[in-house]
């Protein structure tokens, strides 16, 4: 306030000085007549009026009239007007100053308006960009409120998202609790009825955000005046931002549902294949026996043997499926283990026998080192884990290459004893960058995905089981040799170390 007063005083002084300079220049320096001097004064008044304002111009025109009268109009040296023409000069100075200052004031105001509008548009633009660049982690409404306060330099912004029912606050100023409660109610009303409140006393406006005709949110702004059109623009942008986030959410949900559906279909397909294979052998054998009962004894025995073996295979598949369901329903490490004393060597023999179909005459060497004590394990689960790892080794190495299963005593870091199961194959190996991922569920290496059937569950299952035993499953791989190691600490059946 003081500043503008000082500025006005300075301008008034400068206006007077301007008149004095014109007067002095005309009086002493240049040969003149009253007409030229009159024009010079007029020019000065015009300049002052167009650049500064009415007050400065009026003062200048009065001063100019007086100076003109005193110095240049006869009788010179006296404030008297002999000729009525002089009145004309005086009024023309005054009229010029009035008209010119009004014109310039209007132009100035328009320029200021234009600048203000440009700023509004710039802010709307910044805000719209901010909407596009939202971070998917935070709720969108929260980000919108924060951005709105920041971009429009508002003291406070409160945004109510009707869909989630959440209220988000932003801006440097806080409300007292009572005021805020009242505002919450107002925001909810606004969002459900689509009305607006304006409170000039507090410089506060509350307005609805509509999508089409339906209100989807509301917001309150405090601390700055915002033009209606800008307010409308902000409201539309918020509507777009919220709707965009909603559409994205929906798209993600649909995508997730589609993927899980796809996954389920793949799993069911794979399971069906797995179960139908032994069933095919059984059915082919039994129907063959039924349709031609008079086959030679050797044929009948062969068919019955296969049927019997495959029935057992089917039984094992069902057991595995039941165990996997057990893993599936429990969370990691919370699987209820049914521990029983198990001879590790026997366990390995058992696993190799159960995979004889997959082994199909391949050299599989079992090596047990040292005196191995029986240890409390969930025999079925651990058998399942070892089967997955061995099956993997068989699948991912050349058809006739050997596979080794090694059982040995080991030491783990804190001096406690452990037992190691190591399964080594001579396949192409797992690239270093994939070694960390092979235990992930459904992860399958892109290099084998289309050549070797499978669904990326085996190692994940094995890993879950080993962890449930407080053990560790690790991989060590280079081209030509891959070893998976299951390390199980020796524990008593309560899970405490002996």
């Amino acid at each position, binding site marked *: 306030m003081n500043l503008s007063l000082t500025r006005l005083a300075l301008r008034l002084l400068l206006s007077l000085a301007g008149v004095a300079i014109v007067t002095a220049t005309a009086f002493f320096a240049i040969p003149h007549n009253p007409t030229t001097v009159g024009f010079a004064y007029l020019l000065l008044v015009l300049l002052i009026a167009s650049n500064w304002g009415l007050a400065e111009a009026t003062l200048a025109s009065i001063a100019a009239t007086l100076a003109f009268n005193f110095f240049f109009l006869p009788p010179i040296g006296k404030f008297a007007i002999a000729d009525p023409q002089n009145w004309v000069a005086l009024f023309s100075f005054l009229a010029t100053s009035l008209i010119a200052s009004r014109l310039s004031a209007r132009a100035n105001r328009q320029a200021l308006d234009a600048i203000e509008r440009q700023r509004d548009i710039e802010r709307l633009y910044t805000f719209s960009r901010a909407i596009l660049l939202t971070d998917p982690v935070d709720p969108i409404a929260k980000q919108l409120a924060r951005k709105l306060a920041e971009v429009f330099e508002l003291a406070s912004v409160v945004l109510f998202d009707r869909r989630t029912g959440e209220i988000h606050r932003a801006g440097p100023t806080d409300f007292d609790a009572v005021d805020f409660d009242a505002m919450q109610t107002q925001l909810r009303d606004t969002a459900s009825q689509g009305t607006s409140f304006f409170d000039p006393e507090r410089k506060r406006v509350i307005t609805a955000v509509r999508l089409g005709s339906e209100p989807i949110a509301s917001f309150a702004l405090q601390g700055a005046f915002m033009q209606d059109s800008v307010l409308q623009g902000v409201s539309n942008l918020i509507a777009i931002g919220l709707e965009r986030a909603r559409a994205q959410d929906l798209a993600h949900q649909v995508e997730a549902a589609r993927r899980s559906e796809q996954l389920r279909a793949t799993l069911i397909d794979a399971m069906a294949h797995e179960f139908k294979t032994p069933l095919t052998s059984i*059915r082919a054998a039994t129907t063959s026996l039924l349709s031609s009962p008079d086959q030679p004894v050797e044929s009948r025995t062969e068919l019955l043997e296969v049927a019997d073996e495959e029935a057992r295979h089917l039984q094992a598949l069902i057991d595995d499926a039941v165990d996997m369901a057990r893993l599936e329903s429990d969370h990691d490490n919370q699987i209820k283990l049914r521990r029983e004393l198990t001879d590790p060597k026997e366990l390995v023999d058992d696993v190799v026998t159960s995979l004889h*179909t997959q082994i199909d005459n391949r050299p599989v060497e079992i090596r047990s080192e040292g005196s191995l004590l029986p240890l409390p394990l969930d025999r079925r689960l651990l058998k399942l884990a070892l089967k997955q790892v061995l099956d993997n080794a068989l699948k991912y190495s050349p*058809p006739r290459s050997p596979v080794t299963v090694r059982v040995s005593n080991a030491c783990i870091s804190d001096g406690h004893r452990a037992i190691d199961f190591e399964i080594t194959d001579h396949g192409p190996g797992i690239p270093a960058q994939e070694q960390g991922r092979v235990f992930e569920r459904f992860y399958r290496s892109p290099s084998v995905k289309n050549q070797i059937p499978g669904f990326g569950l085996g190692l994940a299952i094995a890993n879950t089981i080993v962890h449930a035993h407080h053990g560790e499953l690790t991989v060590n791989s280079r081209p030509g040799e891959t070893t998976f190691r299951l390390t199980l600490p020796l524990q008593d059946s309560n899970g405490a170390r002996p």
Partner: protein
Amino acid sequence: MSQGRILVVDDEPQIRRIMRTALTGAGYEVDDAKTGEEALEKLRDYHPDLVLLDMNMPGMGGLAACREIRAGTGVGIIMLTVRNTEKDKVEALDAGADDFVNKPFSTPELLARIRAALRRVPISTQSSAPRIRIGDLVIDFVGRTVFNGARTSHLTPKELDLLRYLTSHPNEAVAHRELLQAVWGPDYGDQVDYLRVFIRNLRKKVERDPDRPEYIATEPWVGYRFNGSPEPF
């Protein structure tokens, strides 16, 4: 006395065992292969009359193996698969299989399908000529080839049988059912989709423009008709 030679291709050893026993018991000579690659190798020396081919195998897989076998020979092919969707059937037939059996199957059914695949259409008097021509089209029943005026193609046994049956009833609408039973045997008759795939493949070899067939015309809702008068050549 052998009924024919069959090559069983399946990655499941137990299925190979069963097939060997059951097919040998039914009077066939049997050899087997674990993969499509091995099957292609064996085909060179073994010369089977029929290949029983599993669809889902590691390595090149059943469909690719089927295509390769078909590209080189006219041997009968029956595909075995656990999946039973329209898409799988069409893919198998498109790859050149003569028939399609779902796992699990019963042995008598498989044997019937094998008999049908090995069955040949009895040669009637009109078409007993070893070669016939219809305009530019030349069909060589002995060499199992067809020349459509632009190029010569090999015919699979079933394609040859179809063509033989159609050309022996020239300018006459042959019903789907009649055609199926004549070529595949009395158990067939409803598998019109089979027939459609075979006719499509046949047109690719016989017609200059398979989309506007000149010789093998469709009789809507009835069946197919062979246009033209075959002459011995």
